[in-house]
């Protein structure tokens, strides 16, 4: 599903965010990305959805080289990927409902389908009562869950979740993880960057630890930690 070969990322201002990273993720896997603040977790997810281009090395998603992809193929790639952004990125003048519906609208879904699917997904993340509210009027956790709902609404083959529980209480976090497990079981590959050591520890999934832009540990059924 995802292959990174000797990938480095140096931002225009000279910050080296990733350094010679090689990583393979198979279809249907559930991978935790862990590491200290500024380790390069978000950068890694941004390379996969082509928000950023690698400075060196190759990034392959679904067998296709992301860097050499034509501009007009990028939207099709992104529609197959569900993304939960660390900073939510909700569209400020659309309601919760409209934000989630937007991910379907870009694919050309019918309003009938949208009217059926969106409320279901909102119920899954516990936001059925907030459907008509604008993002600015939501609590932090509610915004985060809207972002999650938007990411899963069109059954992506890959879910990239960047710290999806940072603003959630433990209980809600666990419900979300159950949702993710469910989705994963139905075949969606999940890559989740997180600082929630309790969740990582008890889920016993593959853990990739980054530090200073390098992969320092890659363990199946691992626990949280980024000391070698």
């Amino acid at each position, binding site marked *: 599903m995802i292959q990174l070969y000797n990938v480095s990322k140096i931002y225009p201002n000279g910050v080296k965010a990733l350094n010679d990273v090689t990583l393979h993720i198979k279809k249907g896997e559930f991978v935790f990305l862990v590491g200290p603040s500024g380790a390069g977790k978000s950068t890694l997810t941004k390379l996969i959805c082509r928000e950023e281009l690698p400075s060196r090395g190759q990034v392959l998603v679904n067998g296709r080289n992301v860097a050499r992809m034509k501009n007009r193929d990028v939207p099709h790639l992104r*529609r197959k990927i569900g993304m939960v952004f660390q900073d939510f990125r909700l*569209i400020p*003048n659309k309601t919760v409902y409209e934000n989630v519906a937007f991910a379907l*609208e*870009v*694919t*050309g*879904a019918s309003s009938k389908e949208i009217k059926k699917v969106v409320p279901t997904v909102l119920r899954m993340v516990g936001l059925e009562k907030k459907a008509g509210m604008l993002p600015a009027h939501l609590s932090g956790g509610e915004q985060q869950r809207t972002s999650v709902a938007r990411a899963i609404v069109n059954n992506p083959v890959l879910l990239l979740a960047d710290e999806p529980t940072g603003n959630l209480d433990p209980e809600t976090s666990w419900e979300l993880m159950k949702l993710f497990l469910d989705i994963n079981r139905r075949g969606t590959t999940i890559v989740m960057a997180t600082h929630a050591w309790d969740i990582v520890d008890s889920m016993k999934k593959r853990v990739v630890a980054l530090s200073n832009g390098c992969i320092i540990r890659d363990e199946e059924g691992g626990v949280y930690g980024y000391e070698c």
Partner: protein
Amino acid sequence: MNVNTLKYYFRESTRSVLRNSWLSVASVGTIIISLLILGSSLLLVLNVRHIVSTVESSLEITVFLEDGLDEEALKRMEEEIKFVPGVARVEFVTKEQALEDLKESFGDKADILSGLEKDNPLPNSFRIKTSEAEMVPRAARQLEKLEGVEQVRYGQGVVEKLLSLTHWVRIWGSLTLVVLGAAAVFLIATTIRMSVFARRREIGIMKMLGATNFFVRMPFMLEGMMLGLAGGLVAALIIYFGYLSLLNKVAVTLPFIQLVNDPQTLYRVLGGLLGLGFGIGAVGSAISLHRFLRV
């Protein structure tokens, strides 16, 4: 194209106009004002040109003839005059007619000319119109060379002044319009660009969710078209009714001035404003987005 997507475009653009009401009002206001300035200037220039043409078309050349030319000679001369480049119309004026005209211009002081009838000192003459006012001086010089001509008069000095003035008015009128047109385009495009700029975050997010450039652009373009059309319509209506009432007022208080009022010209001006608003609205939005679409 997908029907659902089409529906989305229309729903989205109308929604956006309403939700960003302040931006919409500001954009439409700028469009109205820019087009009003442009439209009024256009009408002003058209009218000045019209008046200038009217004045020019009253310019004529008078060719005074030697005394004692016979019918045949006059006929031949008329033919010759018609061959002079630029000459459009020739009219023969007898010395008697000339005296009558002179008397008329004296009004109630005409009696000082009484007694001249018997021994009329005025010559026969041709009154000549040229096809274009600018040709008067040149044609006059040609006419002087004809046989049987005693003197050629066309208001020397004044006509040259008038022609150089009207020449200026034409050139500067066109230049002003070009500059104002560019200014209107700049003002409208800037407003639209600022309005897009204020929503740039949203565009980046849409792109990250798998929207194509086209998909992001369409609602903005439709919105730009709507605002441009609305602004163009308001401007056109204001100008239309404003100009009609101006025509009425002028007809009452300045009846001697003939303004442009053929409907076709007027409709062309209004149509131009509407088209300009629509066009800049659409193209301006599309171009403004360009910068924020590279995500």
